[in-house]
């Protein structure tokens, strides 16, 4: 009993779709493009722009000599089989670039997939198969992959076939190039599969199946011509599995030390002496906070410009006096720059101002170098602003205070005079307030939010400032009547913008509770734009 082999199609073709002919216009364009694209050859799997020697490789990665040599030894001479390698290390330690440069030096064919761009198993499998089958997605094939592959079982079968055809092709090319006596770009009969950013696979849906599958891939395939290299930010022990999986050989990339960082920054500098005196001053405080190269680089480059400001000529070699002068100039800016290190400034605030520190309430110092905007730099409707403030208050204050804070006149005026409580109970109260602050914003039901909103917005109408815009035609009455429907719409848009998030629901009541996700700075900014006295309503002041 035999089975018929159906025609190899990626999708089911119905009779109608196979009978329609494509548009004549598109045919013309497509044929033009076809003449431009060439089909991929085996040479494209090797980075064959230029060849680099071992010395160049080690020099381009100044402190990775040990790791480069170890990787080259583990990869071994040509055509030696390999058990899977697991390259791990912190962020921006040069794992991916080192591995790729090593393959450029060795001129061996490899396939690279990153688990960030291939964010689910199907895309990962198809990307690997596309590269192996030398298939490029272009307009001619409708940007589709060579084979459709969702399950690991299909992937193993297809990969096995693709690898065999590829290796035959490699051997054929080698034989041809040997007989023609022309240099071939590709060396060896093995192909290497590099899977990068493996730690992201743990967050996939099917990670319980996919991770052991990837680790066991070498054993399942049983093809010695394939080498497997995993690159990850975290070590092997952070990959948990109930029944274990085949372990791979670890290669560790440590973070750079202070001397390493210094040498890295000194590379290719136009004025080495000046830069090295700059680094003497600046590098250590930054190094104490973070050892990642990319963080420190981003912080240092604007600081260098500041450092060179008092110099007329940046090509000079500084002597001791100049060094001291520059040090005095740069010193106050270092701590400010440290605070600003991880902030992305918005464009209008990049004005260099005098280094005055403006102190705001309770010791929150606004750094003086980049003025932070006192106003919001995006637009919100008035109703939305009031909603935001009410949400912030509802999250911040405990519910029992509402009655005293928001009475019918809306003012927080008549606070009853409290009895003078003892020191101990004051301390206890204060520590309780601090605890509440540290725990984070609380949740509130919708009714409480609307009640506070009503109180606050009615206050605004009677406020002495002439902020209520009569131009819009919203009189005191008009404000009330158009309120309710608008509010719920605004609330849902605030929720989708993540200013208000849905917190847990109380199991007894079953209603949804909300939580404000706005920081105090932002709430103050919003309140200031409405001229609303927010600090009067806050609990622990």
């Amino acid at each position, binding site marked *: *009993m*035999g*089975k*018929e*082999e*159906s025609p190899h199609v990626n999708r089911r073709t119905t009779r109608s779709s196979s009978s329609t002919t494509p548009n004549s216009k598109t045919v013309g364009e497509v044929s033009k493009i076809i003449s431009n694209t060439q089909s991929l050859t085996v040479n494209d799997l090797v980075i064959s722009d230029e060849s680099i020697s071992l010395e160049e490789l080690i020099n381009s990665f100044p402190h990775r000599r040990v790791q480069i040599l*170890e990787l080259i*030894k583990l990869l071994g*001479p040509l055509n*030696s*089989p*390999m*058990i899977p390698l697991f390259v791990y290390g*912190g*962020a921006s330690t040069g794992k991916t670039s080192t591995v790729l440069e090593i393959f450029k030096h060795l001129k061996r064919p490899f396939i690279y997939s990153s688990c960030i761009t291939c964010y689910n198993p199907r895309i990962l499998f198809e990307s690997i198969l596309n590269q192996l089958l030398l298939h490029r997605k272009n307009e001619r094939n409708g940007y589709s992959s060579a084979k459709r592959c969702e399950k*690991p*079982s299909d992937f193993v*079968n297809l990969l096995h076939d693709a690898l065999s055809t590829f290796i035959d092709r490699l051997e054929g090319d080698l034989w041809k190039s*040997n007989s023609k006596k022309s240099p071939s770009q590709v060396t060896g009969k093995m192909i290497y599969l590099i899977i990068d950013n493996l730690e992201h696979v743990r967050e996939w849906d099917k990670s319980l*199946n996919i991770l*052991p*599958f990837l680790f*066991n891939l070498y*054993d*399942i395939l049983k093809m010695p011509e394939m080498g497997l290299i995993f690159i990850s930010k975290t*070590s092997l*022990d*952070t990959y948990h599995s109930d*029944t*274990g999986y*085949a372990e791979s*050989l*670890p*290669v*560790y990339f*440590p*973070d750079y*030390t202070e001397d390493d960082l210094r040498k890295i920054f000194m590379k290719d500098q136009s004025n080495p002496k000046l830069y090295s005196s700059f680094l003497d001053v600046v590098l250590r405080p930054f*190094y*104490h*906070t*973070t*050892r*990642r190269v990319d*963080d420190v680089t981003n912080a240092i480059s604007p600081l260098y410009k500041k450092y060179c400001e008092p110099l007329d000529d940046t090509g000079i070699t500084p002597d001791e006096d100049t060094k001291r002068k520059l040090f005095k100039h740069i010193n106050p800016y270092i701590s400010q720059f*440290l*605070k600003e*290190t*991880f*902030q992305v400034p918005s464009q209008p605030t990049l004005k260099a101002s005098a280094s005055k520190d403006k102190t705001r309430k309770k010791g929150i110092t606004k750094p003086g170098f980049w003025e932070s905007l006192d106003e919001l730099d995006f637009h919100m409707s008035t109703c939305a602003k009031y909603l935001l403030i009410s949400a912030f208050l509802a999250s911040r204050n405990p519910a029992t205070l509402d009655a005293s804070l928001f009475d019918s006149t809306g003012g927080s005026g008549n606070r009853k005079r409290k009895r003078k409580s003892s020191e101990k109970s004051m301390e206890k109260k204060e520590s309780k307030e601090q605890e509440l*602050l*540290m*725990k*984070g*914003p609380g949740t509130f039901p919708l009714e409480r939010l609307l009640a506070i909103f009503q109180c606050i917005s009615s206050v605004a109408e009677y406020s002495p400032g002439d902020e209520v815009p009569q131009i819009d035609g919203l009189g005191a009455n008009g404000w009330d009547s158009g309120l309710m429907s608008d509010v719920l719409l605004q609330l849902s848009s605030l929720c989708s913008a993540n200013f208000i*998030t*849905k*917190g847990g629901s109380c199991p007894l009541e079953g209603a949804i509770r909300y*939580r404000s*996700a706005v920081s105090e700075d932002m709430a103050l900014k919003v309140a200031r734009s409405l001229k609303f006295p927010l600090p009067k309503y806050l609990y622990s002041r």
Partner: protein
Amino acid sequence: MARESPAEQAQVLVKSRICNPNFIFSIFSNPPDSNYSKLKYIISSSLTEACNNSVLLLGPRGCGKVAILELVLEDLLEEYPDMISVIKLNGLLHCDHNCALKEISRQLCQEHQLLFSKMASFDDNAQFMVSMLRECGLAHKTIIFVLDEFDLFAQGKQLFLYSLLDAMQSVTSQAVVIGISCRLDADQLLEKRVRSRFSHRKLLFLPPSREDTERLLEHILLLPTNSSFPHEYVTAFNVKLLKIFADYKFKEIVDTLSYSDSTVNHLQRFLFSTVSHMDLKSGLLSLENFKAALSTIQRQPKLEVLKDCSILELYILVCMKRLEAKEQELRNFNAIMKEYKSIHDTFQTSNYYARNVCLRAFEHLLQRELISFEDNRGHGQSAEFRPVKLLISRPELYQGLKSYPSCPAILHKLMDRDG
């Protein structure tokens, strides 16, 4: 193409031996009461007596279950050609019922040169399998089903296992089902109706003993004398290697290696690393190669990560440890900041950084997996308010601080003070 030196050729040869599990386990096939001979007896007896059979191979990972099975199957295919067809399934890939039947049909079609259709439905595949079983039984051909990762087939409703075993019993078939699993209780996972159709034969595979390990080392590393290598090189290589094996320091290395993990896979990785570090100029292995390989295999990842941390990150870790020691319930970023400020006030350290710098260091620690959030559900709150827990223990932190170059003395004092 430049001819490779004999050292390189030797390296390639030994590496290919190491990467080939069949070669490694071939020395275990000789003794008469080993698993190899028992397995061979079971399968060949069911072949000759034309009956059904089933067996489970159990043992920790890396002890040679699949390798020895492959050796047995190779030998049997030589002895009884045309009487066996082998179907291989893997629990990682084919635990779904549909998937498994499709794969069985595909392999059967491949073996008997039939055309396989990917569009065949589930019913078609099931009928095909049953009829193939019947036909092969009538023709006195045995089908051997190898189910790797057997415990994954035994999850859920075990539909596939039941249908396979049921099919074997209902039609006149000659089939052997071999299950391979790393869970020693794999047979307890089976349902009642599946277990009644499965025989209770189990073969236990254990990591090799000391003597077996030594035999294995010699088997893998010694170069063959009758090969294409130059004779003096081979003798020099083997003599040096035997001298190393007799050295007591080498025995210590192998002992240390097998204290943590004595399976053959672990040994395989150790040998691979050793051979990679072989000095290609002399072409001989030395004791230093073995020592270097030991240090690459036995790593302490948490200590490495601690050495990679910056000083601010170490401060945060020490603050968290102190909060734990004070048994404070709420441990989130704000609490850590409070502790950090109190340390700064008490000791007047020079390393006092602003809040957003500390927040960034906190996020780095999360990435390095030294700290993690306590609950996965609280995505609504920002990172400052979610409670965190430490993923390293107190002695590890202490050791990490001690081995950290230029660690500020204040941190040592703080760790000591907790007592």
